[in-house]
């Protein structure tokens, strides 16, 4: 992984970062995100941890509007969206162009080969030619250690391989921010390591990343910024090392004790 994935010049000119302000999301009576704010600087790796049902996935999915918040502001790079108002197609497209997402369940297209999975979105979203898109796909496959798999169908790949393909598919669109929702939860531990290694390299290259994870080791070692969520709010945030060694709230302490003692 020699060259960085994002173009630093382009990134700087937009003062790239992500910020969410006062995000509120309820399903009926049930308030899932209660006035959550968060900001992530360019090149920063932000890890989000917290108990099941805390609202981590929902928060992540609000960033690219897979989930529509009831109110609040979402800003990614040069796109600002007021969730309380009508969101135009152009705005939505502008937002999603800058954000890549990796899901717990990979969500590859099973009827397409690994290569086509990565090339198709480039052709349709960025208008790249087929040759260009497939070249880029091959380059990324090599980077994630799957240079020998382009012609394979996803069902013939291990979970760890599928997740790396999914990462390559998202990277191929040159996003400025990558969102990961428990990318290793569906994997056996040793397969999860392959994926974590790729994510680690991505972080080293300076990709801005927001990672919901149950991998405490990853959160502690790789992230620059740690957010602990509980019951739809941010319980605590700051330096990972500090939070792991000296949590400020009782709830964080209880959560960390529970997960670390497992």
């Amino acid at each position, binding site marked *: 992984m020699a060259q960085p994935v994002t173009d630093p010049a382009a990134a700087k000119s937009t003062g790239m970062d992500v910020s969410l302000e006062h995000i509120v999301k309820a399903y009926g009576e049930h308030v899932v995100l209660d006035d959550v704010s968060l900001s992530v600087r360019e090149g920063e790796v932000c890890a989000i941890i917290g108990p099941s049902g805390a609202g981590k996935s929902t928060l992540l999915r609000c960033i690219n509007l*897979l989930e529509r918040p009831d109110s609040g502001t979402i800003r990614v790079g040069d796109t600002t969206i007021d969730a309380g108002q009508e969101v135009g197609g152009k705005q939505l497209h502008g937002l999603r162009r800058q954000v890549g997402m990796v*899901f717990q369940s990979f969500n590859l297209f099973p*009827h397409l080969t690994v290569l086509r999975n990565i090339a198709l*979105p480039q052709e*349709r*979203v960025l208008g790249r030619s087929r040759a260009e898109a497939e070249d880029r796909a091959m380059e990324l496959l090599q980077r994630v250690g799957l240079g020998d798999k382009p012609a394979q169908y996803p*069902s013939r790949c291990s979970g760890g391989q599928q997740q790396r393909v*999914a990462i390559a598919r998202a990277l191929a*669109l040159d996003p400025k921010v990558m969102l990961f929702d428990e990318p290793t939860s569906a994997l056996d531990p040793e397969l999860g390591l392959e994926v974590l290694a790729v994510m680690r390299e991505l972080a080293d290259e300076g990709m801005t990343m927001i990672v919901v994870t149950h991998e405490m080791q990853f959160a502690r070692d790789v992230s620059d910024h740690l957010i602990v969520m509980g019951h739809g709010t941010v319980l605590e945030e700051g330096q990972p090392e500090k939070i792991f060694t000296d949590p400020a709230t009782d709830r964080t302490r209880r959560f960390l004790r529970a997960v670390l003692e497992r």
Partner: protein
Amino acid sequence: MTVLQDWLGFLPQLASGLWVSVVVCLAAIVVGLPLGLALALGSSAGSRALRWPAIAVVEIGRGAPALVVLQVFYFGLPSAGLTLSSTMAACLALALTTAAYTSEIIRGGLQAVPRGELEATEALGMSRPDALRFVVIPQGIRVAIPPLMGFGVLIFQATSLAYTIALPELLGRAYSIGSSTFQYLSVLALAGLMYAAVTIPASLLTDRVERRMSRHLA
């Protein structure tokens, strides 16, 4: 012996009847299937202006027996100022039935595409039409192909209903031979065998295709 001789005598007429049956069946499928896909997309569309008319056509097409639709097209439409030949009426009526039934089969196929893949297309910034064209429809159709082929066999058999509108298809031919020779049992048995000669291989093929289709889609 004599049965075989009779059958040889019937065969030319019945074969031309079979040909008519096959052509009408193919026409119904060629017209009905794209319409079925359109109705499937329409009846799962977000906009009500698209959804309700599509659902109405599907429900009417499935609710009305094919025989009734056939009669309406042939005997009913002339009083509304539209006169169709029996071939045309048979093709259109069976196409409507095909569209209505296949739209439900296709819709089932489209819905079988996991929600997560649609979310992936959204997250990748792909447009909704692109998501349908490249992700949902190819997979949905693949899931739908075996039941669609099964339906094709049914609609082929349903062409026999067109004998009621004087279409010279297989059953019609058999019937007219029967009424001039009174050898109903013999000629109808041969006609039945000829239907089976088409439907049995088609069903076997359907089974094979079904097994092949389930390969990549885990």
